[in-house]
């Protein structure tokens, strides 16, 4: 404190007033003028500060600060001049003066430095002009700014207002840069969630994996813009079908800045288009069906699930002459024969109740012939995937001719069966009744021969021989005829028969003939067939006997085999005999037909006819393949049956 006061009061020096010899005028002149200067100097920084504050546009602001400092320090210098008149505080004075010197030199230096710039400062006139043009420019800019602002506003409103379009930007690397409410609505991502994220997440992973996203960016970069449609993925994982326009954005320097994208959800449109196409296809298909139904030669109709008719094809109207409205529902029944109506309705009701296929024959009025014609009506239920009957589809086919023909055929078949039966009956009765007188003839001629042969001369004995021989031949014929007629009359109902057992029996029956001729019989293992065993024995017996009989000069060699042909077995009996000319293939199976004289080959000509009758009675067929001199092979078919021996 002492020191500080000493610094202000000065110590040891003479006050400056001594220099003025304490001359009051001089003292006070010095004092007042220095005070005035200091006062004025101190006001200047405030003025400058105020000026600088008010003039924000002021240039050389540091210069003004320095200038304020310089003036302020000058003001302190003058105050020190005033103080030192009475108090010799020269150390303080010199300190203030040194600070002022520093500020002055710095300000002067800055002034010189700033001089060129200061000189460049426009003059007030120029400034005024510049100001004016500046004002104009400002107003123009304001106007353009206003326009820009309005335009930006419009653009912002547009971008933000578009709810159906996602408008967003993507950086060149494919990350999302901007996001509008439409995008948020369409994709489900908020702006915060998606900005900076790769836009690939909006694509299906499989598409990204297939390189579609990268290919799209490459295409947009190459072509400037591209449009595509495809599936996109929302935030919640659901998918929608989008139309996307991608535009590559380039800066003034031509560098790629990013991509603008406009995305629309066109799922509904796509679905609507698909539905439209489907509807179109359905219409076309229906038209085609209708054409087809109309072109069909049958009556075609559909009814609802309750059985009420809804549609008839053209054929119905052609046949009946009915009109459309009257035919619908149950109106069609007016064209059904009155006698058939009840049965038709009854079976139709039953089919409706059971949901089962209906098939019935009914007479439908045909206006073209003016008569009722038989039709085969069928109705099939059409079911929904759940199984419920939704509709019935029906046809009615004119089977009048067919039915008539069938009836005729049936009558003919009945006639034929009756006639056959009568014929068999006749053959049986005839042969039986013929046998009675024949028995008399042969018995009495034998009696004659026995008792009177010695009394006959040679000629008498010859005649006797012919009588006996004739009676014997007739007896054979009658026996064969009886046997033949018995094939039909005395048949057993079919049952499984082991063919090799039947063959074995036949061979046993023929043992004598086989031994006599040293016939060789080779036989494959034979199957089981459905048949009448005694008749099958007879069949084999007749064929083998024939083979032996017509052996020619060779030792008989007979081969028997069987091959499976569907539901039948085809048997073959092949020999090495004299053979048969193809011209006679049919004839040999006709009863009493013979190809050779009785002296060559005795017989009545019944054997093969019996074979044919047996085979045909079994539902089979018999035929022969042969060449004269080349042996003969008889084939016949018999119905196959499971072998009961193999079934245990």
């Amino acid at each position: 404190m002492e020191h500080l006061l000493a610094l202000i009061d000065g110590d040891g020096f003479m006050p400056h007033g001594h220099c003025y010899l304490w001359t009051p005028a001089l003292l006070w002149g010095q004092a007042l003028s220095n005070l005035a200067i200091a006062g004025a100097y101190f006001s200047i920084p405030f003025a400058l500060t105020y000026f600088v504050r008010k003039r924000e546009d002021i240039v050389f602001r540091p210069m003004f600060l320095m200038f304020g400092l310089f003036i302020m320090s000058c003001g302190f210098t003058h105050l020190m001049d005033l103080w030192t008149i009475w108090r010799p505080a020269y150390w303080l004075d010199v300190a203030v003066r040194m600070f002022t010197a520093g500020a002055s030199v710095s300000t002067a230096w800055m002034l010189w430095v700033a001089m060129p710039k200061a000189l460049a400062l426009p003059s007030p006139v120029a400034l005024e002009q510049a100001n004016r043009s500046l004002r104009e420019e400002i107003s123009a800019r304001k106007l353009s700014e206003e326009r820009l602002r309005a335009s930006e506003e419009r653009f912002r409103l547009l971008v933000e207002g578009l709810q159906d379009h996602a408008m967003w930007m993507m950086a060149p690397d494919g990350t999302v840069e901007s996001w509008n409410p439409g995008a948020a609505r369409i994709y489900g991502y908020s702006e915060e969630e998606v900005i900076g994220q790769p836009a690939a997440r909006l694509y299906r992973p499989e598409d990204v994996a297939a390189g579609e996203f990268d290919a799209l960016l490459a295409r947009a970069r190459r072509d400037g813009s591209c449009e595509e449609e495809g599936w996109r993925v929302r935030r919640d994982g659901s998918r929608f079908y989008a139309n996307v326009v991608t535009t590559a954005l380039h800066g003034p320097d031509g560098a790629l800045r990013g991509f603008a994208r406009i995305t629309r959800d066109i799922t509904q449109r796509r679905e609507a288009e698909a539905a439209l196409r489907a509807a179109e296809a359905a219409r076309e298909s229906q038209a085609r069906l209708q054409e087809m139904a109309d072109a069909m030669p049958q009556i075609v109709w559909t009814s609802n699930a309750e059985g009420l008719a809804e549609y008839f094809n053209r054929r119905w109207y052609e046949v009946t002459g009915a009109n459309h409205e009257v035919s619908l529902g149950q109106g069609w029944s007016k064209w059904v024969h009155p006698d058939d109506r009840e049965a038709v309705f009854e079976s139709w009701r039953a089919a409706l109740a059971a949901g089962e296929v209906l098939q019935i024959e009914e007479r439908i009025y045909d206006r073209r012939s003016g008569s009722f014609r038989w039709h085969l009506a069928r109705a099939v239920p059409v079911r929904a995937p759940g199984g419920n009957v939704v509709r019935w589809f029906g046809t009615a086919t004119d089977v009048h001719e067919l039915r008539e023909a069938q009836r005729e055929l049936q009558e003919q078949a009945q006639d034929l069966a009756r006639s056959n039966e009568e014929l068999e009956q006749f053959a049986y009765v005839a042969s039986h009744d013929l046998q009675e007188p024949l028995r008399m003839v042969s018995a009495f001629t034998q009696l004659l021969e026995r008792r009177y042969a010695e009394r006959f001369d040679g000629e008498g004995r010859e005649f006797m021989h012919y009588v006996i021989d004739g009676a014997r031949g007739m007896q054979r014929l009658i026996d064969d005829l009886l046997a033949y007629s018995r094939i039909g009359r005395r048949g057993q109902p079919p049952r499984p028969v082991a063919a090799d057992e039947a063959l074995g029996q036949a061979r046993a029956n023929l043992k004598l003939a086989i031994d006599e001729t040293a016939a060789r019989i080779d036989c494959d293992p034979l199957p089981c067939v459905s048949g009448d065993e005694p008749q099958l024995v007879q069949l084999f017996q007749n064929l083998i006997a024939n083979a032996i009989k017509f052996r020619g000069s060779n030792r008989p060699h007979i081969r028997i085999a069987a091959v499976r042909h569907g539901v039948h077995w085809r048997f073959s009996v092949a020999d090495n005999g004299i053979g048969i000319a193809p011209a006679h293939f049919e004839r040999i199976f006709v009863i009493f037909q013979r190809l050779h004289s009785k002296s060559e080959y005795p017989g009545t000509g019944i054997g093969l006819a019996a074979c044919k009758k047996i085979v045909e009675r079994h539902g089979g067929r018999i035929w022969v393949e042969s060449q004269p001199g080349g042996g003969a092979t008889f084939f016949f078919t018999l119905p196959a049956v499971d072998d009961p021996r193999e079934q245990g």
Partner: protein
Amino acid sequence: MRGRAADILLVEDNPGDVRLVREALREGAVEAAVRWARDAEEALACVQSDADQAGGAPDLILLDLNLPRTSGRQVLAALRSLKHLDVVPIVVWTSSQAESDVFESYALRADAYVSKPLTLEELVRTLRGVCRFWLR
């Protein structure tokens, strides 16, 4: 064989057959007298008159099934209804080989069913056999 000739009643409408039976019996050295009834009436009248004459009866009746008017089956039924003929063998002698005829004949209590043989030799053998069996 008995000492006297056997009395055979042959019911048969065909005279040739009657002659054949007689000749065959002769050929077969069967001692028999053949009485002939040509139909049902004669047959019944014959056995009736036998009965009237001290309860007599033929030793054997040969009955053809094929008779005019009344069939052999009806004659068989009628003969079998007569008590005094119970012990008399009745052999159906016919040309029919129908199974139905065979079964029905036995059902009507015929003692045998024999088909008429087709040759003389067989006829002789058959009749000899029949007589040897039934005429004791």
